[in-house]
């Protein structure tokens, strides 16, 4: 871990003056590397570069694009900006949440997918928007978004269409509150 700061320092050409670091740029670099901001890396960085950990934490919690929890390998984002909202992004988000088995802001257990809502992507003419790994998909409906993600799931997990359907149903059942209640009873 001690190497981290050194490597990042070398990687940062223009932004890194030892005492005048652009904190946002630094955190972005960490996030790019680890997919999130791991606590031990931040602590190490603070020590190596003589930065305030508090300031880092402040900035990291201020911006929505920084995450302190591990995020999925594939990022799925739905836009919930005004235009997208009016054209039914809520339904799209719900459907994606059902297919992936995670709520917005969460990451799937295998660490493959994370789902989040963003406020505006600046492409309101294409509303509602879904972004999968940086690729924009416009004019989404619940059905089209589901098809899109299922296609992606099929490719990334190597499942057949039937297997996938089963998987989704199972996930939906797991996410149901009755399932939680049942599990609770089992423990008793």
């Amino acid at each position: 871990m001690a190497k981290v700061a050194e490597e990042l320092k070398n990687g940062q050409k223009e932004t890194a003056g030892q005492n005048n670091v652009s904190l946002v740029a630094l955190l972005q670099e960490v996030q790019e590397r680890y997919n999130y901001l791991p606590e031990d890396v931040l602590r190490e960085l603070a020590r190596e570069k003589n930065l305030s950990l508090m300031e880092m934490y402040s900035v990291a919690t201020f911006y929505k694009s920084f995450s302190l929890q591990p995020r999925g390998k594939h990022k799925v984002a739905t836009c919930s900006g005004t235009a997208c909202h009016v054209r039914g992004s809520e339904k799209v988000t719900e459907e994606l949440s059902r297919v992936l088995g995670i709520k917005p802001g969460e990451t799937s257990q295998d660490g493959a997918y994370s789902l989040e809502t963003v406020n505006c992507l600046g492409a309101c003419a294409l509303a509602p928007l879904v972004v999968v790994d940086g690729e924009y998909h416009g004019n989404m409906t619940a059905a089209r978004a589901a098809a899109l993600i299922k296609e992606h799931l099929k490719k990334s997990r190597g499942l057949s269409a039937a297997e996938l359907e089963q998987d989704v149903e199972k996930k939906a059942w797991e996410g149901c509150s009755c399932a939680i209640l049942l599990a609770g009873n089992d423990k008793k």
Partner: protein
Amino acid sequence: MVNFKLNGLEVAVEKGTTLLEAARFYGIEIPTLCYDAGLSPYGACRLCLVEVGEPGKSRLVTSCTYPAREGLQVRTHSQWVVNTRKLIIELYLATCPSSKTIQDLASRYHVTGVRFRQKHEDCILCGLCIRYCSEQMQAKAIGFINRGEKRRISTPFERKAEECRFCGGCMYICPACQARCQGPEEKEAVCNACLNLSPPCLDRFNDAMCYLDPCVACEQGRKE
């Protein structure tokens, strides 16, 4: 030196002096919550608002962060300023009625009721403790986290900060920490126990007739 008009008076202060410092230097009282002479000004509490500019084109600015400028016209106790100040105190009362500092301000500036939905926060996000920790103690053990309505003060990763030396400065400087006299359970939002009697002379004259504080002699002549 910078020459400007303070409540109609020609005054001169050194370059770089803020309007708040200038006003206090000339003996004019401006209330503050987030200001401390030993810390950098922050402009968060908005209590130190003053009116600057010519009448008709004037605006309200925070005097703690506004440096005096040549030829500026500043009014610290115009109707606009006083009413806004009272409104802000009222908002603080609605947020954090358990603070003695805020209750004292309410009494001092004759705020006797709260028209807003009552909350019971224990922090007004003035940032004094954070500035104290970083500027006076050089520790930076506490800071703001999150943003918007989720903004609050915490330590890195919300665990005990290694930098903290238990100096207690954050509590010493906090304007919300000291509980109001009747204790935290008091139901009434406004205490007003030490409501200063407003000098009745101001009803008849343009200026106060004496500078006794509190106005003892006025007690008999006080109108309800």
